């Protein structure tokens, strides 16, 4: 077995000229006059759905209206009272298979590409992918312009508590999701619903 030291020593010995790290603070990254509108447009263009929720409306009702035939709804969020399964309490991750709708919470959205940052705040992250349909709850004031802002925020907030009192650092997994799972691997024809959620809806919540 070769050690880390052997490989690093060999690599180091072969480097010929070293280059400096560029300054990244002068990147003129795109911003939008109305980030929320841009975010919603992007979600639609990547095959997802974005809905602004009026003040005072019950999220459970909206989910019911969107998925009237859903039998199994999985969530660990206390406000999701229609949940039939809880990803914190299932015995094995695979027990979440057969979930019609998974409901999770996002921390912020990214206007340039429709991504929503979702740290794992439940015991089994399978709920984010195994569900046929995914509903992401997001406060509509939490939209950043671009990925530079997104990662700056992630660096600053990795340890701060998010949904369910958990931070990204707790479970050590998080993902940016932009729309539903998709593929064009058969003859370049775009099909929604490859291996993970077949539809993705972002519910944009009022202040």
């Amino acid at each position, binding site marked *: 077995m070769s050690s880390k030291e052997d*490989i690093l020593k060999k690599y180091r010995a*072969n480097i010929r000229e070293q280059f400096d790290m560029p300054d990244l603070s002068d990147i003129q990254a795109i911003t939008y006059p109305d980030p929320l509108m841009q975010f919603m447009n992007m979600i639609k263009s990547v095959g997802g759905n974005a809905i602004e929720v009026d003040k005072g409306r019950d999220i459970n009702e909206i989910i019911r209206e969107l998925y009237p035939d859903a039998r199994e709804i999985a969530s660990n969020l206390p406000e999701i009272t229609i949940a039939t399964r809880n990803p914190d309490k299932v015995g094995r991750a695979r027990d979440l298979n057969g979930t019609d709708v998974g409901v999770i919470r996002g921390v912020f959205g990214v206007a340039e590409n429709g991504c929503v940052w979702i740290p794992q705040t439940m015991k089994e*992250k399978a709920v984010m992918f195994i569900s046929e349909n995914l509903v992401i709850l997001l406060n509509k004031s939490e939209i950043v312009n671009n990925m530079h802002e997104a990662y700056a925020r992630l660096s600053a907030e990795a340890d701060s508590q998010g949904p369910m009192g958990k931070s990204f650092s707790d479970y050590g997994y*998080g993902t940016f999701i932009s729309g539903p799972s998709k*593929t064009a691997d058969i003859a370049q024809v775009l099909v929604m619903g490859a291996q*993970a959620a077949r539809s993705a809806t972002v519910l944009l919540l009022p202040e």
Partner: protein
Amino acid sequence: MSTQHSKAAKKFLKNQQYAHWHDATFWAVRSKRDNMAYGLDEWEQLREKASQIKRHTITHLDEYLDQFATNAEKNGVEVHWAKDAAEFNEIVYGILKNHDVKKMVKSKSMLTEECGMNPYLESKGIEVVETDLGERIIQLKGQAPSHIVMPAIHLNHDDVGELFEEKGISNEKGNHDPTYLTYMARLSLRNEFLTADAGMTGANFGIAETGDIVVCTNEGNADMSTSCPKLHIAAIGLEKVIPNYDCLAVFQRMLCRAGTGQPTTTYTSHFRKARPTAHHMHIVLVDNGRSEWIGNPEHWESLKCIRCGSCMNTCPVYRRSGGYSYSYFIPGPIGINLGMLRDPLVHSGNVSACTLCNSCQTVCPVKVNLGDQIYQWRQQLSEFGTANPQKHLMCQGMSILYGSPGLYNFVTGLAHWANFIPAPLMNCGLNPWAEGHKMMQFPKKPFHEMMKGKVRSTLGSLCTFRSKNSEK
């Protein structure tokens, strides 16, 4: 005089209809990339920053690898180091054996392809299931990828439909609709995810500052592969490690825009720790030549590559010859260069698969000087002993001819006599120029003769015109 590449390309070109579709499909992807690039005023600035970050990182990689491994270990991840493909395969098998794994699902990884991991593990009795749809299709077909991002692009929907019928994945005979076939594959793969003992992912990036590995997919198969099985192994080439999130932001913005013309992949997933209900997570860092390549004065910049595939999408030769025409498992401009770094004796046939148009390095998001490097490799063919003797002889002849003006003028003056050689003699196998070309007609007077006296007078009148204009 044909090279290994051009001989293989002949097979590809036999089906003209498909060859045309292939060309048009990749040009469409290139156009989508252009739309993305033109949509961002900062695109060229991002390319320059990305190039500089990579230059810095790979020339300080020993430090960043150390930092990455230290931070990953702090997160409870077991980090392994493999000097070559054989050691990588042994390490992975060792981990799987320790956990009594019978079946492993995996997401796409060009590194496991590079190391020949699947056949190795299968020889040890472990079932490996590819879960990216394209990879799954070619795995069932017993084929290798023909593109690094769109691995099954050489098959049409009828090919896939028939394959799925044969393998019992689809049950409606004759239904070759891509939506239906994708759904049937989803059902079949879902079962694999639920019953596998381990999941493997590659990594698009490793983050030194946090120890995260970052995996970008559209299908969500990397996340599915790690959501149910109790064991996660990540395979990473050394050069995938980058310093921090600020750098990641630059690459995340470019990877998918450059590769497929999308604003982002559907999932950009950060794996920092094992799932609370799973075993330790393992990361295997693989050298397999990289620590030597960094020392190559002309070709070290190939290590900047982020495997987006944009160089092959735009390459006029790749588009018209397909992935299987190249001898290395990575085709297109980056594959030509990586293949030469791997073994020039085996892969030098690929360096002819280039028109030196430099479209590749014009679109490359990290500015790898792909075309320049291919040109450099061509200069070394004699050294490797892989130069074509016929071409070599011709080049020697040409340097004598072009080196002596007297001989040149004499020969071009006589060239039109070649027009009298009977066509069958000129268009035979002995004349390699005639293959795929029509022989040209030599003019009676060489260009020099035709232009004698005219060049000076044209230049003269241009000068007069200019000075008259400037007086105004």
